[in-house]
């Protein structure tokens, strides 16, 4: 009897550890919100909420792709460059070829998909380590973006190019007594809607589809997956294509917000994406990770930046703090997995 009760207590503490980890990130998110609400009166407002959500979209979209890649045991360092390339391709398509904005953006997104597809080929067919394959793509995509634009920003894109990044749904504007427009609700920015829809879709894909199950299986043990009949190459390639596509979409959104395409946009964004996945509990060894975790991770980074800005903390100090947060959360993860 003694043995049994002892075993049960061990299992319980295992489960407790699990719960602690799951809520550690979410808990720290609440703590952050609470602290910043106290220190800055402008923080906890609808307007700032939407600002944060908008700022978080790029990290979150890239993070969603990164999560899928990392679950298979890979890594994608190219997304920052790929988003720049996709954005300038879309912009050039509008300015130089006169293609309507929606189609131009589609071309931009497909450019991202193409980069991801090449990454997938390099990893699965040429058997390059993902780190090296995507490092190469990172340099190439950035180089091409700079080359085709002559390293200059592409502007003069017209108002319609800015709709995706700046438009919003349910914006409520009333004309006040003084005749000036009065924004009573800023609306939900299109990028935020995109982010939510994509997060839900990818989350469903991971949890409820055969493809998602195969993604986890490949990351957990690719040999066992292959010997169980999983098409490992196709599954791995898919995650890189997804990551590239989302990078392409992020590129279009970012360039649209500025109504200017910058070939230098998105430098180091890949690291934010990886950090958001890791803070959310994705294991770099593969096999473990969730979209909800990554979303939390993205918001932790976004809220930290926003809140620290509002409190007048310098950009340098912000980096130090975010670095510490990454180390802390991953350390908690290690504690949990230590047996």
């Amino acid at each position, binding site marked *: 009897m003694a043995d049994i009760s002892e075993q049960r207590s061990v299992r319980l503490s295992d489960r407790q550890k699990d719960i602690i980890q799951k809520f550690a990130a979410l808990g720290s998110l609440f703590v952050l919100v609470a602290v910043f609400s106290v220190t800055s009166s402008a923080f906890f407002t609808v307007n700032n909420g939407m600002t944060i959500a908008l700022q978080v979209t790029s990290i979150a979209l890239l993070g969603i792709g990164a999560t899928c890649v990392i679950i298979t045991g890979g890594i994608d360092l190219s997304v920052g460059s790929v988003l720049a390339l996709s954005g300038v391709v879309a912009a050039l398509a509008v300015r130089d070829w006169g293609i309507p904005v929606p189609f131009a953006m589609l071309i931009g997104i497909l450019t991202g998909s193409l980069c991801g597809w090449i990454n997938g080929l390099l990893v699965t067919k040429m058997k390059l380590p993902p780190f090296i394959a995507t490092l190469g793509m990172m340099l190439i995509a950035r180089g091409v973006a700079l080359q085709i634009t002559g390293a200059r920003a592409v502007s003069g894109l017209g108002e319609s190019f800015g709709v995706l990044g700046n438009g919003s749904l349910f914006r409520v504007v009333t004309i006040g007594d003084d005749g000036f427009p009065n924004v009573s609700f800023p609306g939900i920015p299109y990028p935020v809607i995109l982010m939510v829809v994509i997060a839900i879709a990818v989350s469903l894909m991971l949890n409820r*589809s*055969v493809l998602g*199950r195969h993604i*986890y299986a490949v990351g957990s043990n690719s040999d066992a997956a292959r010997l169980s009949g999983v098409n490992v190459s196709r599954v791995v390639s898919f995650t890189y294509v997804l990551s590239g596509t989302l990078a392409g979409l992020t590129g279009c959104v970012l360039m649209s917000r500025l109504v200017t395409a910058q070939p230098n946009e998105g430098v180091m964004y890949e690291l934010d994406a990886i950090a958001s996945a890791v803070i959310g509990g994705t294991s770099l060894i593969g096999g473990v990770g969730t979209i909800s975790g990554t979303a939390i991770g993205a918001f932790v980074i976004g809220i930290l930046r926003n809140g620290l800005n509002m409190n007048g903390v310098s950009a340098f100090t912000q980096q130090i703090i975010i670095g510490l947060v990454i180390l802390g959360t991953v350390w908690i993860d290690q504690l949990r997995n230590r047996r």
Partner: protein
Amino acid sequence: MQNSADIRDAHVASADRRALLRLDGITKEFPGVMALSDVHFDLFAGEVHAVCGENGAGKSTLMKIISGVYQPTAGSIVYKGQESRFASPLESEAAGIAIIHQELNLVPHLSVAENIYLAREPRRGFLIDRKKLRADAKRCLDRLGIDIDPDTHVRNLSVAQSQMVEIAKALSLDAEVLIMDEPTSSLTEQETKLLFQVIRDLKASGVGIVYISHRLDEMEEIVDRVTVLRDGRYIATDNLRDTTVNDVVAKMVGRSLEEKFPERISKPSDDIVFSAAGLTRQGVFSDVSFSLRRGEILGFSGLMGAGRTEVARAIFGADPLDTGTITMHGETLTISSPRDAIAAGIAYLSEDRKAQGLAIKMPVDANVTLANMDEVSNTFGLIDFAKHNKVANDYVELLDIRTPSIKQPVRLLSGGNQQKIIIGKWLFRKPKVMFFDEPTRGIDVGAKFAIYKIMDELAAEGIGVVLISSELPEILGMTDRVAVFHGGRITGVLETRNTDQEEIMRYASGYGPKAH
């Protein structure tokens, strides 16, 4: 256990001479598994003490306790007259206990000398004293009478030479206790002779050697005493000159074959379910042909590296096949990947459960359904969870898998239950032919019996069953015929009921049939 008092008496008597190492009442419990219970072991300076037992008897757990990898749940370890607990292999090594693992632990890209003194390089200031390193290594190797240039890179050495380097390394640590885990498993006869000479020299210089081996035939040459473990329990310690190998085997098995294996219900018929002809993979196996009859269990026997697993993997599409035809129910199959093989109705239970069989971080249900997701999903590729969970629950029940729930990660289950999960995965595929590669390795006796029963039931249902096993009792107890491999070829296909261990071993060593 009515004779346990006698055993302890014998133990006390032998303790008149002071033992170099002495373990008493060692118990080790893992979640859900009792790996060792109340085990005794002692070792004198200058003796070779063999530890024997079947797979899963607890030999390696015991060694890991001696070397500090595991901490015993209960029991005492007395080393050189002092109660000791080694918290890590580093501590035991510092105290003079060295272990030479089955998988060698050398760094291939460093030289022999660098490997011997790894992390203890002689220095001159900040730099490594290369001259001294080389000279010291040379002295170590000379002491063993082996002729290896200390500057050679380890990757250029044969397995036997690497093993010698490991021994040299252990000696350079002034090891007083040397644990050798299956040292001869990959050596040629010539190399084995050399190893035994080295062991005799070590003995003469007062080193105590713990020797673990499945090759009982070799033991008589060098072993002084033998301790038998069975199912994690201590059975006996004997002087080898007072006993016989047969006696040791009887103690290892501990029960007659009838009790270990289920009564076969399947009966071989005449129609051929599956056949392979002229299978060849350059440098691995050549011209392998066999056929499998309905209701039959066919054994693949042979020594390590004889090509049994390699043939099965090639048939399954896991490794490429150069030439040969594979036929199932009269139809010739083209297989270039495991996907093709699975689609054709072939299942392969791999020999390495953790590395090739399980998605170890995933739960029971995901592992059971992994090879047949199409069955539990709709046309859009979305999982039908009602069906999915029912399948998982059904197989958990059918195979008596002991798990708190189907959502339990499989890494938390015992070896036997993990193996049953993989079997469940393949049963859900409804295979026509199934290869079981070392299905009972490292799992407890109860689960073994259950797995034998499953194999028999599958054969009775008309599924072709191939059992690949290194354990001859298993081959003799479960199969109808046995194909014996040697050097990548089938040297003989024997009717199981008309053969014995001796004959199989003769074919496995390439000697062929007995001269009449």
